[in-house]
């Protein structure tokens, strides 16, 4: 968040219509994502009552788990997800060896799941945890088992911890990067009030539309928690009916339950596809493709693990896994942030309001500046310098490396900052790509510059069998243990 987005929020509150933030997306939006709308059974932990899913907006599939029918529900849902995933496990390509990575076969594309918000991401994670240790019945194909469903859901949910990953899309969170509304983040976390602001129905302002969808009985909120008013009005009696009914009576009540749940989920289904199509219409920033490639690689790796009959993901990260994951999360977050700053004008603009970026004019250049050797035996190095004048309120420290969208590979260090009454002059020294012509811009050029991405060396952690005494405890990780 920045003062720029706060200002847009104020404008939204003032005009009663959502205001644009970033107009470029940084995540991949598949042509046919699988939209998943889970509904949890009230009073239970990760036990769905229903899931509406599908990759065709016109043909939602409703998977229903009426009391006592959990297994059939899970089998159908597992089958559906498997069919979707399996369609991406056909075409492959060879990725040539690079660095320490040997040549390997990879899928061409990957599946993508979309959910409405953070609560659903968490729900899929919990459902994955509930299912992944289930035994695979002997006479079934493991690929369509509840256990594999659990392992896939866990895979998607774990990837969702990376902001850079597009495998599991969080629609409200994505929409919020593109629009500021006149309501708070808590309200923006729900699809209906957020979409009401972004696309109010004709004749209503965003504010009016958002208030209108607050009545849960008229506008069922997105899941996975079932709204208590709906539960009291419909589910309670249906559940009671189902409890005693057998045979065709039961079938009759199940049909009623199905209709009720369908009616509850359909408005969200429609909204979610609208949200997806809005997001798809946003042009991606260039680095989006590379991040999706990482997702495809992760998808391939996980597919291979499942094919090879590997164990389910452990309940908790062991010492090394935790440390490696933290390093990867930090690396992915830092590179995403750096890429967005250089590729998305809005993010650069936000950084200008925080002092981490500035727009300025080149006022002086010294392309042949030479650094004298510091130690005997060193040679003199050419390090071009130039001066940029800006009226932005910069907050930078000497020695900090900067880069700009004009040529992201050129990094220059802040050598000196001079403040005058109405502007700031910054002397920069080119540190990388010194010989490129673009490394020293012409006098009069306007440049946008921000802090360059930090260098992230690949961290070296001990192997799992050599964890030092400082981190070995009395409780060794036992991933194979079957939980209750």
């Amino acid at each position, binding site marked *: *968040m*920045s*003062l*720029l987005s*706060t*200002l*847009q*929020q*104020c*404008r939204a*509150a*003032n*005009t009663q219509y959502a*205001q*644009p933030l970033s107009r470029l997306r940084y995540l991949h939006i598949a042509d046919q994502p699988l939209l998943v709308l889970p509904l949890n*059974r*009230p*009073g*239970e*932990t*990760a*036990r769905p009552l229903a899931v509406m899913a599908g990759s065709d907006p016109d043909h939602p599939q409703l998977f229903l788990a009426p009391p006592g029918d959990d297994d059939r529900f899970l089998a159908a849902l597992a089958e559906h997800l498997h069919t979707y995933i399996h369609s991406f496990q056909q075409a492959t390509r060879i990725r040539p060896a690079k660095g320490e990575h040997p040549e390997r076969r990879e899928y061409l594309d990957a599946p993508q799941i979309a959910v409405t918000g953070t609560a659903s991401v968490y729900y899929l994670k*919990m459902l994955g*945890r*509930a299912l992944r240790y289930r035994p695979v019945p002997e006479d079934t194909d493991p690929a369509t088992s509840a256990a594999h469903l659990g392992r896939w859901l866990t895979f998607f949910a774990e990837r969702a911890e990376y902001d850079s990953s597009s495998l599991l899309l969080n629609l409200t969170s994505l929409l919020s990067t593109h629009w500021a509304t*006149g*309501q*708070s*983040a*808590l*309200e923006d976390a729900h699809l209906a009030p957020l979409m009401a602001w972004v696309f109010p129905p004709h004749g209503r302002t965003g*504010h009016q539309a958002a208030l209108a969808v*607050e*009545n*849960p009985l008229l506008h069922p909120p997105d899941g996975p*928690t*079932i*709204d*208590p*008013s709906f*539960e*009291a009005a419909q*589910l*309670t009696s249906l*559940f009671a009916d189902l409890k005693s009914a057998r045979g065709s009576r039961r079938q009759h009540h199940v049909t009623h339950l199905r209709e009720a749940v369908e009616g509850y989920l359909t408005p969200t289904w429609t909204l979610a596809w609208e949200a997806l199509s809005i997001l798809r219409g946003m042009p991606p920033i260039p680095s989006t493709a590379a991040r999706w490639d990482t997702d495809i690689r992760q998808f391939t790796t996980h597919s291979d693990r499942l094919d090879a009959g590997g164990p389910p993901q452990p*309940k*908790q990260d062991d010492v090394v896994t935790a440390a490696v994951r933290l390093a990867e999360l930090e690396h992915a977050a830092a590179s995403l942030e750096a890429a967005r700053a250089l590729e998305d*004008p*809005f993010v650069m*603009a936000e950084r*200008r*309001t925080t002092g981490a970026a500035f727009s300025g004019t080149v006022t002086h250049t010294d392309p042949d500046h030479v650094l004298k050797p510091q130690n005997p035996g060193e040679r003199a190095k050419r390090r071009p310098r130039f001066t940029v004048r800006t009226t*932005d*309120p910069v907050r930078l420290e000497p020695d900090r490396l900067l880069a700009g969208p004009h040529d992201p590979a050129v990094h220059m260090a802040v050598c000196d900052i001079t403040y005058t009454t109405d502007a700031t002059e910054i002397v920069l020294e080119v540190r990388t790509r010194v010989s490129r012509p673009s490394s020293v811009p012409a006098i009069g050029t306007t440049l946008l510059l921000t802090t360059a991405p930090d260098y992230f060396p690949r961290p070296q952690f001990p192997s799992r069998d050599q964890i030092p005494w400082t981190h070995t405890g009395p409780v060794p990780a036992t991933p194979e243990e079957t*939980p*209750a």
Partner: protein
Amino acid sequence: MSSLSSRLGTLRGPAAPKPHNARSLAALTANPGCRRRALLDAAGVDKDALAVHLGHPLPPTQSPRALSRGAQFEAQVKEQGGAELLSLLRDVLHLPLPEAAHSDLSVIGKSDKSLPVRHARTRALILEAARGQGPSRTMLDHPVLMLTVPGQPVFLEPDLVAFQSEGVFHIVEIKSFAVIDGQAPGDKVAGAVLQGAAYIIALQDLLTSAGLDADRVSTTLLLITPRNFSRRPMASTIDARQQIKSLRRQLERLDRIEDLLDQLPFGITFDLAYDSDDPRTRTATRDRDDLAKALNAAEARYRSNCSHHCQLAHFCRAQAHEGRLVDVLGSTACEDLGSIDTVPTALGLADESLRPAPDQEDLAAALRHAENIRNELFGGAA
């Protein structure tokens, strides 16, 4: 000056005060800066009814089925004299708790009317145990504790008090949310700990009022929950010291409610002016605008998370919206806007149609800068 309770009675009107419980006491710590909330709670005003009458009801947030599942889980855990519970407590407390020492106070009665009697009995049993006089009980089921919130007794019903003769008393909370691989949702645990803190405080007060040491009450809460996805119970311990301190502070503040009352105009009331006494058929006749005006005398502090713990949240939000307050935009925006209270001021300073107050010059400059950048990005006035 009339007595505190009569002043609060005037504020509430003739309706009976809405009794507090551990949950509502715990909610006192959610937004202690809100004067409106503090006054309504102290006077025992039915905020739900108020919100409905004002046309801003808060949709229900409690699932009926979740409630009954919770009750079921509690009953299951306490089955057979709490045998399962006992073995869990032994494990967690490392105590040699004797068997078959379970007293169920619900035999006295379960209705609200039985609360004072159950409280008296609870008090007697606890003091007996604390002084090592009675038989060595280990579990007191359905006990009733009491706190005085301002001037009124509030009966609290913890799930269970466990104790060891001449030893330490433990509050046991039974919750139906699951602990999965050692983790549980932080807001749910926080709610349980705050409620537990209310029980611990009540138990501490009970002992000190009888000249016994408050240290005899453990400040570690025992939380019984389903383990993972099963219905099997497990026990976790939580250090509740911070919550106890914080709740005590807020209870003391409620005792100083007179300061807030003094600031209200004379004779103000939040009475809904029901046309009859029968809660099933009565209708509120109070003029809405008049009621809203009365409420305005008690300044609210609307925060976007108010809807999590106050039934009046949507009314206050509508007021904040009407007043064009930046508070409706959430905490990040408020933080960014510092001393700027309203949306028009923020925008006016940004587009220079307003001149900043001397202490706003720097923030105004930052807003103007952001506005220039905004115009570069999105073009001029939208």
